[in-house]
């Protein structure tokens, strides 16, 4: 029986479960492949475990995905880099399955292994693998091959390199759009490893082919390649080869391609440099801002601040600002919303005078937008404008916008504006806040929707943190205490909730003098829900107040509650009593 404790037994079970009918057990075994390998030793792992796994490629995708991931870090278990090549066959078969995420993981792992392999092994085993996949009968293999070239290419002989380049060029012209898409996606990575002498000739030819592909989905991905390739090329080559492509793409027939350009333009500008940005890309960007497809304008509008950062203020005012003005009254609410989310960032770029002259009217009109998201986006970035022109110029329009949002009929909108109230409070200052917003904060505590009431209570706490206990004592506490007498039990409950949140901020003294008497009074409420919330609240107060207060007031109140006819009240009261005792034990 001594053998039973042998550590081999769990390993034996793990191995058996590699073929269990239950997928969870198989998954578990695959995830502990390293444990199995350690027990088997390096040689048996190479000779038995890895071949065994190679046969396993018709398992469920989840298992295959886990296996593809594990094998990527398996080099130490097969005896180090000189044996790394044994890991290639199982990963090669995983590269051919039809589930994309499994293939991608297998390609990832192959890249990890390949980048550690010795040059000679790379030539002997990795490069042939890439060539096999690239010549695969089914497109899945060829798609995977595209992601491996950049690893295979390094450390190859010149002859092989020539072959790899020509193979890649074939993949760029594959019959299947899926393969061409993969080739387009990986072109930048591959190009980064190719010697610059071939870059201009061969790689750029492939790129040109891809940019003229009949499938929109291929051209889309070629756009992404622009930036990557542009950074590799000499500046003058970049201007000669990449710039025309970008300008062409920005006028592509397909809105999806233009959308991609709008999203990428910032990176593309970096690739071609500031001069060309000014002369060629500004007109392209202006066209995108005025595109007839709303999706394109949304993407372009969202980049307006980033783009202006690349330009000097004069150019921004001259070319971009007129478009921004148009966009602020765009027919699509999503365009206006995208603009509103970034436009405040333009203030620091343009400076105070230009902001007041040009941007302020736009801010004001967006603040009056009929679509709440637009207003919210403006309000959420208020701090950026505040630094440049101060809040006063905006505050007149701000208030109606805030009030309207605070009373919006969609509770999600109300919730969103509550999130920004502390920010507003800090930007607007105490004076403005007291006059205008204080009442709103109390109103939210009595909202019809629970989430709003909860957020309202939390908001009080954050305001107390922002303006300090003294201010809160004056402006928040009286109203909250008043609410404990509200005839509606849900409102009384919310007052208790606000107290429990504010107590840690307000400190021991105010808690004892102001909150505690009210809470104790509430423990005699007729609604059990209130009573057990009192019990919970008292429990949360224990760490805040002195031990003497606990012993004198809180304990007595809890003892009373623990004799309540309601079972839940008794339960929470006893919980709280236990925690008093626990705290006492911990102190002693």
């Amino acid at each position, binding site marked *: 029986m001594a053998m039973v404790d042998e550590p081999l037994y769990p390993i*034996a079970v793990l191995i058996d479960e590699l073929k269990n009918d239950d997928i969870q057990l198989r998954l578990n075994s695959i995830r502990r492949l390293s444990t199995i390998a350690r027990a088997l030793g390096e040689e048996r792992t190479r000779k038995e475990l890895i071949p065994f796994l190679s046969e396993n490629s018709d398992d469920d995708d989840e298992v295959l995905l886990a296996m593809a991931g594990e094998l990527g870090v398996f080099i130490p278990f097969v005896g180090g880099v000189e044996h790394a090549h044994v890991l290639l066959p199982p990963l090669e078969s995983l590269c051919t399955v039809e589930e994309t995420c499994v293939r991608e993981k297998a390609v990832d792992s192959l890249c990890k292994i390949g980048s550690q392999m010795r040059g000679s092994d790379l030539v002997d085993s990795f490069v042939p693998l890439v060539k096999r996949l690239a010549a695969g009968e089914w497109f899945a293999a060829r798609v995977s091959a595209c992601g491996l070239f950049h690893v295979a290419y390094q450390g190859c002989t010149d002859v092989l390199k020539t072959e790899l380049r020509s193979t890649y060029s074939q993949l760029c012209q594959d019959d*299947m759009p899926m393969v061409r898409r993969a080739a387009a996606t990986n072109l930048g990575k591959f190009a980064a490893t190719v010697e610059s002498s071939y870059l201009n000739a061969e790689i750029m030819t492939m790129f040109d082919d891809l940019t003229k592909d009949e499938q929109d989905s291929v051209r889309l991905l070629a756009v992404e390649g622009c930036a990557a390739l542009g950074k590799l090329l000499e500046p003058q080559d970049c201007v000669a080869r990449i710039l025309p492509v970008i300008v062409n793409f920005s006028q592509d027939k397909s809105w999806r391609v233009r959308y991609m350009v709008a999203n990428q333009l910032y990176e593309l500008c970096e690739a071609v440099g500031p001069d060309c940005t000014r002369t060629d890309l500004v007109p392209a960007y202006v066209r995108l801002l005025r595109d007839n497809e709303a999706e394109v304008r949304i993407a372009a509008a969202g980049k307006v601040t980033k783009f202006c950062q690349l330009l000097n203020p004069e150019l921004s005012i001259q070319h971009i600002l007129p478009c921004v003005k148009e966009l602020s009254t765009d027919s699509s609410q999503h365009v206006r919303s995208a603009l509103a989310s970034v436009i405040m960032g333009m203030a620091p770029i343009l400076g105070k005078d230009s902001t007041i002259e040009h941007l302020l009217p736009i801010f004001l009109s967006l603040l009056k937008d009929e679509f709440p998201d637009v207003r919210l986006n403006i309000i959420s970035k208020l701090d950026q404008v505040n630094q440049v022109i101060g809040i006063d110029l905006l505050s007149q329009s701000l208030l109606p916008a805030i009030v309207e949002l605070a009373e919006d009929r969609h509770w999600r909108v109300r919730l969103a504006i509550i999130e920004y109230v502390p920010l507003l409070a800090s930007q607007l200052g105490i004076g403005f806040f007291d006059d205008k917003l204080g009442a709103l904060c109390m109103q939210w505590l009595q909202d019809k929707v629970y989430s709003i009431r909860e957020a309202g209570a939390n908001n009080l706490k954050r305001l107390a943190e922002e303006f300090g206990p003294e201010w809160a004592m004056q402006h928040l506490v009286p109203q909250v205490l008043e609410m404990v007498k509200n005839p509606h039990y849900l409102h009384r409950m919310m007052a208790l909730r606000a107290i429990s949140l504010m107590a840690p901020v307000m400190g021991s003294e105010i808690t004892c003098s102001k909150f505690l008497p009210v809470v104790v009074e509430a423990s005699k409420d007729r609604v059990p829900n209130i009573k057990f919330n009192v019990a919970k609240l008292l429990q949360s107060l224990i760490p805040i107040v002195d031990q003497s207060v606990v012993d004198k007031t809180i304990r007595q109140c809890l003892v009373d509650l623990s004799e309540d006819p309601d079972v839940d009240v008794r339960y929470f009261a006893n919980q709280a009593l236990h925690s008093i005792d626990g705290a006492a034990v911990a102190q002693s």
Partner: protein
Amino acid sequence: MNGDDEEMVAASVDPYLPLEWRFSQVFGERSAGEEVQEVDVISAIEFDHYGDHLATGDRGGRVVLFERSDVRNSSGGARRDLEETDHHPLRHPEFRYKTEFQSHDPEFDYLKSLEIEEKINKIRWCQTANGALFLLSTNDKTIKYWKVQDKKMKKVCEVNSDPSKTGALASSSNPSITTACLGNGGVISSLRFPVVTSHESSPVARCRRVYSHAHDYHINSISNNSDGETFISADDLRINLWNLEISNQSFNIVDVKPEKMEDLSEVITSAEFHPTHCNMLAYSSSKGSIRLLDLRQSALCDSHSKLFEEPEAAGPKSFFTEIIASVSDIKFAKEGRYLLSRDYMTLKLWDINMDSGPVSTFQVHEYLKPKLCDLYENDSIFDKFECCISGNGLRAATGSYSNMFRVFGVSPGSTESATLEASRNPMRRHVPVPSRPSRLGSIARVVGRGSESAGGVDGSSNALDYKTKLLHLAWHPNENSIACAAGNSLYMYYG
């Protein structure tokens, strides 16, 4: 029928000569007096891209797959080469049953208190990969992506801890392992890998993805894009665009829902992607129009780039004019220039470069014209007949009543027109009315053959059976072979 052989050879030489249609196969043939189970009625037929496989869907939510059996080598590419080099004129495609699976089950939508039928509305084949077949099937609400692959039945034997040995040793399980370990001599070598033995393989269907909750109305079409990445699904009012790999979101690209439902005057009846241009898409409407969309123009394609409509007919309008104008099916021809459409009475061929009117119109069952009132009374007028076009684009076929279907030559100048019955003897009955003025010889031939069949029932006679309608049929992508559904039976013909 002496001239048969010569005619066949001739047909293979000159594809324009009229075809002689012959019965090839039948699956699920009904014996006399046997009642057709509702769930067995075929509701969708589709050949795959290469014509190596055929799928049918039925009202019971099942998908049945057939594979071609007349060519021995069954690996895709090699076989196609073989066919091209070694073409034998007398060989015609033959299929055999491959497998079937339950694609959809009846469901209940609790939110809307709606029963969702399991009936398969459409099947579309997707790109083959790794020797596995992929297809999309849909019922009224949910689209599913299926993978069908031959799987070897595997049996695991020789494990480390074999429970069966435990019993033999009549002791607790742990000692038995100890014994096994010791038996193999030494501790390390006792770790063994399970040995898997493979048995005969059989096709297994697995649902890879489910695309659901995107349609408020009944899905009438699904269609794959040539990019191999996306597909559309169309219901009465909307068309959605999906990525095959993403099942939890889709993009609405067409929405014809008016602000007030009372203003609704037109619904989408069918939609299909262009076979090669990834950005082009056509959809038909209940008002008889076909719209061609360019997805490049904008994200929401509310405005069409081309509109194909029959110029308003001069004749008197009746109550039925609008009902029978409704297009029930559209199909692009293989190279994508021509588009076939079917409305209740006619089959129309359109050139997408010509939006002034159809290139040609074929009367499918003109003898029904006086009976539209009856057909309206028994709802037959709302039957949705499908249509199909041959791989070479020279002929088109569509169904009618009494399990009849019509084949028309659609190439310019062709007068070919045949009426066939979905039975073992397809030429048994004929409608003696040619679809349009044709050469004398052709008429003579049709009539001649018609008169041969003794006791042949005239198509226009009262024997017309509205219940046995041939709605679904498909043309083999590269051979003159048609598969059609008559009730629960699948009939195949070749010409």
